[in-house]
């Protein structure tokens, strides 16, 4: 009986092996073309990620021998006050997602009515978004600089302010400024996606709505909004992840200070990596960021699947 099972198993394996060979024979060219992407995913994304989790369980210096530490990095973070300052800063900073959505939606709806200059308007919209965040950070650092920036100078000169606002030394003001500048810089991703989606709405839908006497608001609610639902979810999930990992622009404007008041999680990771060379601790922060980003990924995948099913139906 044992032999029979063994024989069955081996023919089963044999069939399976043959099937794999057949699939490979049929699709070898496709798999060959996919190979660089697979290697990329394995070696540049997954392997470092898994190694990072391993590192976060150690005291991991830049040079020298790593030392097993269990979950001490995580318990250290959870008992460390600046970590919660950082979480608070991140929570405030993430509200720029809402501002970006409002600006993106407004811009794409308004630009739809443009019959002339639409290319120029589009180009101007994209200026902040396409430049390095360090550059846009420098621009606003200068404009808002308490001593040498033009804005404070004009406000003082016209008597609106009696003394300059030293926003960089005030935690709440700093994080608010960073949030507004982040909204100003990064709303264009949503605009690009919404605008592409809106241009795909057939004019007849609006004409029909008008024939039935729908007002502009009703047209927006009944025609535009349902059409934008998918784009909306895609924009929200992309923006959540991208806003979560912003470092260079806030870093350029405040260096994460005063104290840890503007050290969003990304900046906390940066500080651990660069200043303390504590790689294990840095990735512990990174892993927490990963957990925060996962929800957005599922949202995106679900929406994408729904879109695909509708397209194939």
């Amino acid at each position, binding site marked *: 009986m044992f032999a029979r099972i063994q024989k069955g198993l081996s023919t089963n394996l044999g069939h399976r092996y043959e099937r794999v060979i057949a699939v490979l024979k049929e*699709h070898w*060219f496709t798999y060959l*073309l*996919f*190979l*660089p*992407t*697979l290697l*990329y*995913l394995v070696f*540049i*994304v997954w392997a*470092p*990620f898994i*190694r990072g989790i391993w*590192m976060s369980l150690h005291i991991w210096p830049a040079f020298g021998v790593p030392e097993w530490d269990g979950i001490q990095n995580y318990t250290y973070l959870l008992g460390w006050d600046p970590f919660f300052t950082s979480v608070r800063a991140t929570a405030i900073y993430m509200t720029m997602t809402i501002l970006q959505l409002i600006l993106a939606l407004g*811009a794409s709806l*308004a630009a739809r*009515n443009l019959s002339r200059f639409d290319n120029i308007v589009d*180009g*101007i919209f994209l*200026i902040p978004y*396409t*430049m*390095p*965040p*360090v*550059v*846009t950070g420098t*621009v606003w*650092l*200068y*404009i808002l600089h308490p001593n*040498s920036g*033009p804005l404070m100078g004009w406000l003082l000169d016209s008597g609106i302010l009696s003394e300059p606002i030293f926003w960089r030394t005030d935690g709440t003001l700093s994080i608010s400024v960073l949030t507004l500048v982040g909204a100003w810089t990064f709303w264009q991703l949503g605009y*690009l*996606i919404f605008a*592409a989606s809106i241009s795909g709405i057939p004019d007849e839908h609006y004409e029909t709505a008008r024939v039935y006497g729908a007002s502009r608001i009703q047209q927006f609610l009944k025609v535009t909004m349902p*059409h934008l639902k998918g*784009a909306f979810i895609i924009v929200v999930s*992309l923006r959540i992840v991208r806003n979560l*990992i912003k470092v*260079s622009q806030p*870093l*350029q404007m405040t*260096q994460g200070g005063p104290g840890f008041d503007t050290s969003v999680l*990304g900046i906390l*990771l940066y500080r651990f*990596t660069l200043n303390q060379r504590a*790689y294990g601790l840095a*990735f512990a922060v*990174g892993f927490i*960021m*990963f957990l925060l980003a996962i929800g*957005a990924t599922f949202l*995106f*995948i679900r929406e*994408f699947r729904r879109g695909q099913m*509708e*397209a194939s139906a």
Partner: protein
Amino acid sequence: MSAKNPSLGDRFWDFASYSFIFFLIASIVGPYSIVVFSSFKSRQEIFGSLNLIPTAPTLEPWMAAFDALGGPLLNSLMIATGTAALSLLITIPGAYVFGRKEFPGKEYAFYAIISALLFPHLILVVPIGAWWLEYGLYNTIPGLWIAYQAFVTPMAIWVLRDFFEGLPDNIEEAARVYGCSQFEAFLRVVLPLSAPAIAAVGFLSFLSGWNDFLFANLLTNNTGPQTATVALFNTVNSGEQILWSRMMAAVIIVGVPPLVLYLISRRYLGNAFSVS
């Protein structure tokens, strides 16, 4: 009200949307005109006067900025070019397969790409940094080429896949009828048709590499190849007094190349995320 007098309601919404566009444009043109005018101010004027427009414009800030940024700009150019080239090597075949082929396992491969697209790639800088130190890629330009793929490639595959998918259904079969092999059909029919889109995606990857600060700063130190963004960061955060006119010239020099590349490639990139 709109039913009684539709043109009035329409006019109100037109006014509202033009006002909103005006507000957005002002919010961008305003700050950037300060930047441009400030970059032509002399040392006395940048610190001593409140004029928007310089009374005695000078090119000195621009010369000084070019002088200071020469090496870093060259580094950024090499790093971004290599990043784009490597990314295209991975992306073109991968995106082609996703856009035009059916194969067992495609669904899983696709989710792998999507999750890479939404992966908080910033956190990879820690393990990659540790590896680069171990394997001698720290402080090297090829080290940055490889590391940048972490965030450049998923986006490039996504955009290019969309383009490949949109090509006519039967071009490969047509090529096969004329005696091309699978590979020749890809190389001699699909690739030439896709040249503009591939260039656009190359530009996009270039500007992602050019714009990055974080990886560049954490994977090199002051003895390695310093990029333009790192140079800007170091100048501002050196603790010395910042000569803002020079800084504003530098900001334009570093910021304009990616803007121009994006606007050139814009029309090939816009629809990759559009969903109905």
